[in-house]
């Protein structure tokens, strides 16, 4: 798409198609693309559009690890990719994957950062220097010597970047790096990307969230059905009308354009009353003396930085964990821990851990053994899953899995529904679908609490926010008319 001399071309695709083994059709088709050295490009588009596959072609995994069929010509720094042995590509292309949990090998920060260098036989004396520099580049001195496992997603992402940085590749490939991050960590990620760009690295980011990339990226490439369909500069992307953006199906590039929903009619029926709730892990208090109320029809965003106790509160509300002090009243009655799951259902972030059936239909039948095929079909149709009725839940896409968890929650049918980051890694259309569905549930009188870091989703979906400002205080405010406050709460750390 851009013409420039060969020696300045970092990545070149000529009529490239790629098909995974066993797939019916290619995941990417007929791609022609040139990325110049030092250029920053963003690949975007709906789930399954082929952007992750494109990153896998660049880092060599598509061909060598996933063992698919690659046609056309791909070159890295002017050399055909097929001329590089697979282990050599890692020296040129550093990869940062979506899920920080499953890309670590070491327990301790320094060991993890050194891992790539160790594999490439970097001499002992130089190893320490590279690790120190990589840590300094991410401002990660505080993370030295620490166990990686208990770290927040943002910290893990920093270490993933440092471990690639230590090898010092020319090209960086990020696959949905913000999917598991809060907004504060997204800002930190943005700054790291800025440093990489300033150091002259070529950067390719596959991403749904675009707002944090507009002042970094040189080009935004929109993909659909495996093809590159549109190209925008940051300015052109920002100038798209809201109607146009939504019809294309991409997330907002400008958070200021997000509008709140009109005030909803919340009934005066009190469904939740949390009174002076406290919880501690061993002797470390998570929160103390928390109180709030919620009503039928409320759709509440629960916000606050990682570790402040949002998930713990949800676990207590549905009886998975026990509080140290305080009361929870559902519909005006004090409910024992064991009976709380009759009132509140919790959809966890990790959808894959919540499926136990052999098929989508069977998944629903587990909670209603006597359900007829017609009833199951009706529910699946409501959630746009009827075509996948016989598929195994593990084979569904992220958005479909999220919808299936909601379909299950419909059948369990508790008056209160709690969701943990339901839009993590979802494209605009799936996010919109989840948003519309939750609103329709509140219209029927449900109370919904959503733990979220997603400003766009919270603003267009929720009527109230509960902000965990510190250990013993919740700030409760309506979202309508308070978008600036919502933004600053989500950015707080």
């Amino acid at each position, binding site marked *: 798409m851009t013409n420039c001399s060969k020696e300045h071309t970092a990545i070149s695709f000529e009529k490239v198609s790629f098909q995974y083994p066993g797939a019916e059709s290619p995941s990417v088709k007929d791609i022609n693309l040139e990325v110049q050295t030092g250029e920053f490009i963003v690949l975007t588009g709906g789930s399954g559009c082929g952007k992750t596959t494109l990153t896998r072609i660049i*880092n*060599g*995994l598509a061909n*060598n*690890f996933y063992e698919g069929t690659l046609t056309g010509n791909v070159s890295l720094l002017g050399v055909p990719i097929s001329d590089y042995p*697979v*282990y050599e*590509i*890692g*020296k040129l*292309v*550093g*990869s940062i*994957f979506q*899920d920080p*949990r*499953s*890309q*670590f*090998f*070491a*327990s*301790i920060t*320094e*060991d993890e950062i*050194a*891992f*790539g*260098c*160790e*594999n*490439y*036989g*970097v*001499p*002992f004396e130089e*190893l*320490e220097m590279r*690790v120190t520099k990589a840590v300094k580049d991410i401002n990660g001195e505080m993370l030295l010597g620490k166990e990686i496992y208990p770290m927040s997603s943002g910290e893990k992402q920093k270490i993933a970047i440092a471990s*690639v940085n230590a*090898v010092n590749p020319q090209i960086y490939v990020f696959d949905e790096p913000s999917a598991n991050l809060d907004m504060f960590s997204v800002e930190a990620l943005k700054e790291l990307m800025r440093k990489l760009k300033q150091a002259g690295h070529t950067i390719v980011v596959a991403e749904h969230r675009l707002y944090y990339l507009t002042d970094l990226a040189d080009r935004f490439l929109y993909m659909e059905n495996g093809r590159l369909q549109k190209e925008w500069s940051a300015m052109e992307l920002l100038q798209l009308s809201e109607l146009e953006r939504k019809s294309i199906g991409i997330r907002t590039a400008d958070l200021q354009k997000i509008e709140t929903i009109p005030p909803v009619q919340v009934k005066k029926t009190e469904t939740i009353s949390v009174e002076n709730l406290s919880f501690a892990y061993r002797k470390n208090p998570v929160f103390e003396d928390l109180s709030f109320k919620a009503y039928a029809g409320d759709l509440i965003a629960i916000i606050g930085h990682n570790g402040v106790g949002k998930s713990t509160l949800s*676990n207590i509300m*549905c*009886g*998975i964990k026990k509080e140290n002090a305080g009361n929870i009243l559902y519909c005006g009655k004090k409910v024992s821990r064991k009976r709380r*799951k009759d009132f509140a*259902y*919790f959809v*966890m972030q*990790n959808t*894959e*851990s*919540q*499926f*136990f059936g052999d098929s989508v239909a069977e998944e629903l039948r*587990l*909670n209603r053994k006597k359900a007829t095929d017609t009833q199951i079909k009706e529910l699946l149709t409501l959630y746009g899953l009827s075509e996948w009725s016989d598929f195994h839940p*593990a084979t569904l896409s992220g958005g479909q899995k999220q919808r299936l968890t909601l379909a*299950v929650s419909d059948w*369990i049918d508790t008056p209160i529904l709690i969701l943990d980051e339901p839009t993590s890694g979802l494209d605009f259309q799936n996010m919109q679908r989840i948003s519309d569905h939750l609103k329709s549930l509140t219209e029927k009188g449900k109370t919904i609490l959503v733990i979220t870091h997603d400003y766009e989703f919270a603003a267009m979906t929720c009527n109230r926010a509960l902000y965990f400002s510190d250990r013993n205080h919740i700030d409760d405010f309506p979202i309508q008319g308070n978008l600036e406050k919502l933004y600053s709460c989500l950015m707080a750390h």
Partner: protein
Amino acid sequence: MGVKFDFRTKLLVIALTMSLVAVLTSDILIYTLLVCLCIYLLIQGFYRQAIKYFAVCCVFILLRLFSGGNGITFLMPEMFLFMVLRILMMVMAAQPVFGMPPGEVVAVFKKIHAPSGIALPITFTLRFFPTIRSEFADVFSSLRLRKLLSWKHPLDAMEYIVTPVIFRSSRIAEELAASAESRGISNPGEHTCRRKLLFRKQDWLMCVIAVAITVMYFVLEGMVKV
């Protein structure tokens, strides 16, 4: 913090333990081997783990004694109790290598010229188990919320636990392998390590003790059989 052994010493202890649990038939020898493994963990500073493993093994030993060699109902036949005890002892021997720096593991395998067909799967496995540990907690919570966890239907419950864990495990395994591949794990050239690979006096001593204990157990096993 306890004594630090080289990865090669730990590998030897694992190999010797595996051979012993496969061969020993005498209960008293198995029970004394359990004590030896606890000491092995304690001297390396794995206090909590040693106590946990010992307690769990004691429960299984008591169940075996209580059942008089007949097992406890169809859910826990004698063979199950027998197997679990031996598997636990192998896990005890392997405990010191869980969470080891991957660079050290890879560098040692390179140094001893282990074939990559053996070295790479072991390196992945060491990282894999700590990664899937948290998955189990999510699965149990979800089962409780959906009211699918019931003592009345233990086989169903078992299936519900295993299914998502297997699917999640295969995905995590794939992602871990992709991450390692993109970071040069399969480089056939020299691998270095930021921690120096030193086979020190304590390693020699541990290896001699481990071999001596193994030989002694084989001799005692032979005498018991006679």
